[in-house]
């Protein structure tokens, strides 16, 4: 119950609390007022009854002494007030031994008969007893003459006007309190709604931010006064600003990493270009010396063409990596051929060998953009090459299934440290590696996140560490990160 109450929005809870408080307070006040009114009415009735009884007793005492029923009856009739709203309904005068001398209604209380004990029981000492059921007030008075009890007067008053007054006051209290409660509840509702509106604004922005599109709270949404809400807004905007700067920094770092890996590739590429260059120079010399010989000329030109092809491939591969926006096209087999070419100089430098295996031709799939996947795979391959000792082997396996594309990169290193593993697989770890180490893996993780891809790291039998990147087919949004 309490927890259900806590789940209610503030705009409901506060007016409800106000209402409960008001109902409690008004209940207490009403109870006090009615109690006070009841006492006042009893005092009033007591005085009225006393005045009436004083008159009756003074008038009839001699007749009671003589037990003169007629005079007592006549006295009761004469003393009956007619102007008050509280009228005696019945008056009974008894003599000794509670024998009825006369009553205002002799048919009901027979003269000279003992008074009904039930009737006597309705009276309570000298004070007035109000019975709400019969709408009557009961009061009795002893008739004392020369210190002797000679009889008693029993008077029953019609107190319906008093009870009606109580009902009217109760109704007035109820109406007033209900209106007041409703009014205060409404004020509570409006006030709380105004108070929580900044929180709603903040909530909306935070939900957007969680969804990945954080925006600043616009000036137009700021409250007019410099309130707590404005202060919270400013703090939030500062947070968003810093997050945006962080993202810019991350992109810059990624860019730098890309350039850095390119740099590392550059020397290898120089070799790739230099190797054919030697052959090309030889071919040019051969042409110069023996160009008139057709066979020599044709074979030299063939050699030159092959050399230039090789150079062009290397240059194109480098360009493709450096300008990934050109590779928004779907992934193709050629991309893996490019990757082999790109890592070849690094592998050669460390006298390592690449075990490349692709099980079948890759269909064009819009969810598999060439640029980000090439970048991620290249980073994994370079990382594997770095981890594998000289003369070791690095593996690249590409498997295409109906549901996904799986790229597995293996190395023969001593196993991936936990920090590196955490960068790869822990999505909640938003921390950008500050010292540059692990930046390549962080970029892999960001790309995988954009592609909706899963990354698993495992130690295969034969002590190879395998990193698997599984990219599902239904990816519509093309990453812009890489």
């Amino acid at each position, binding site marked *: 119950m309490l927890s259900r109450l806590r789940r209610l929005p503030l705009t409901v809870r506060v007016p409800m609390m106000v209402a409960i408080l008001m109902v409690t307070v008004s209940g207490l006040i009403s109870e006090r007022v009615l109690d006070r009114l009841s006492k006042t009415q009893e005092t009033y009735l007591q005085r009225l009854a006393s005045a009436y009884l004083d008159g009756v007793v003074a008038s009839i005492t001699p007749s009671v002494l003589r037990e*003169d*029923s*007629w005079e007592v*009856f*006549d006295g009761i*009739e004469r003393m009956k007030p007619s102007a008050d709203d509280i009228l005696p309904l019945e008056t009974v005068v008894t003599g000794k031994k509670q024998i009825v001398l*006369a009553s205002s*209604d*002799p*048919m009901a209380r*027979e*003269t*000279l008969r003992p008074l009904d004990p039930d009737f006597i029981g309705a009276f309570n000492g000298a004070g007035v007893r109000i019975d709400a059921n019969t709408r009557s007030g009961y009061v009795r008075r002893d008739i004392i003459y020369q210190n002797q009890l000679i009889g008693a007067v029993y008077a029953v008053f019609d107190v319906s006007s008093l009870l009606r007054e109580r009902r009217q006051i109760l109704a007035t209290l109820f109406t007033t309190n209900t209106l007041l409660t409703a009014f205060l509840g409404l004020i509570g509702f409006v006030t709380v709604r105004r108070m929580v509106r900044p929180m709603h604004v903040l909530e909306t922005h935070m939900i957007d931010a969680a969804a990945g599109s954080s925006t600043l709270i616009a000036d137009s949404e700021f409250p007019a006064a410099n309130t707590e809400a404005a202060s919270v807004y400013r703090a939030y905007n500062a947070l968003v600003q810093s997050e945006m700067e962080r993202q810019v920094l991350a992109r810059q770092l990624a860019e730098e990493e890309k350039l850095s890996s390119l740099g590392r590739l550059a020397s290898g590429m120089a070799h790739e270009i230099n190797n054919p260059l030697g052959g090309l120079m030889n071919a040019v010399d051969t042409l110069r010396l023996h160009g008139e010989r057709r066979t020599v000329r044709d074979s030299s030109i063939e050699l030159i063409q092959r050399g230039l092809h090789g150079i062009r491939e290397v240059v194109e591969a480098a360009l493709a990596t450096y300008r990934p926006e050109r590779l928004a096209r779907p992934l193709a087999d050629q991309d893996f051929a490019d990757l082999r070419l790109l890592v070849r100089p690094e592998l050669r430098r460390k006298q390592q060998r690449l075990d490349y295996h692709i099980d079948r031709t890759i269909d064009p799939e819009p969810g598999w953009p060439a640029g980000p996947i090439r970048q991620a795979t290249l980073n994994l391959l370079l990382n594997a090459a770095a981890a594998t000792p000289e003369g070791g082997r690095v593996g690249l396996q590409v498997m295409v299934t109906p549901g996904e594309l799986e790229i597995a990169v293996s190395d023969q290193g001593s196993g991936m440290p936990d920090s590196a593993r955490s960068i790869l697989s822990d999505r909640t770890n938003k921390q950008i590696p500050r010292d540059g180490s692990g930046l390549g893996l962080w970029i892999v993780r960001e790309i995988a996140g954009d592609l909706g891809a899963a990354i698993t790291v495992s130690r295969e039998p034969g002590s190879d560490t395998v990193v698997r990147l599984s990219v599902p087919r239904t990816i519509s949004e093309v990453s812009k990160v890489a």
Partner: protein
Amino acid sequence: MSGAPPLNAVDRTWSRRSAMRLAGIAAFCAFSADHAQAQAQGTIRFGLTPVFLTNDLELLNSLQAYLAHATGYEIELITRRTYQEVTALLVSGQLDAAWICGYPFVHYRDNLELVAVPNWNGKPLYQSYLIVGADREATSLAYLEGDIHAFSDPDSNSGYLVTRTLLYQQERQPEIFFRKTMFTYGHRNVIRAVASGLAQSGSVDGYVWEVMREIEPDLVNRTRPLRKSEWLGFPPIATSRVLSHSPRIEALTKALLSMAEKPEGERVLRMLRLTGFEAADPSIFDGIAAKVALLRGVL
């Protein structure tokens, strides 16, 4: 005086009252010239028994005005609580005349003289009623045994003597026959006592009962006559024997006997539901005298 005139029997409409008020003013103007003479000649002290309903001030005023006008004397109306007080004042000569009951008249026959006797329905006679609650199933006096019984006055003929004689004739004592008896000192009170249930039966002046039935039907119709007595002499206006031939009494006698002939007197008679006054023979009280004789030594 059991036949005390009742409440104002006049139809209490505005027009009637207005007419009377106008007539009163006219009378005042016409006879103001006689006022000084009346003062010089003295005052007639006229006693009324308590059953002559003192709350009907209009009737008293009209009666006083008529008598003052008709006699030329100033009229002083004197009322007392009981018959006995009025009778004592009359017998002792402190009143010039009084409207008393037939029973005290018979009782003090030697000291009193008749001035005039009212006529009810043309006769100087009335009855005593034994009344009970309207719903009560009783057919005779015997049913009333064990009742609380309301009498009017111990000196009243219709309100006491008649019932007392009846019981005596049946050899019953009222104090034993009835559980309790009470004197209400007024015929209207007897009717109130029986109507309210305070008493189960009562002895009342038949003339009062009949007249009040017209004026206060709601009250009177809660009772019914169980037994009506024989016709008896109507409560007379009497004077002490020594004053009976005085000019004041002669003037009063004349004024009463001629009341029906004068408009002011006629109006008073209408209020009283009487037809007039007559100089009746004392023998009309023989019936009452017989009852007194019967109970002599008992009361």
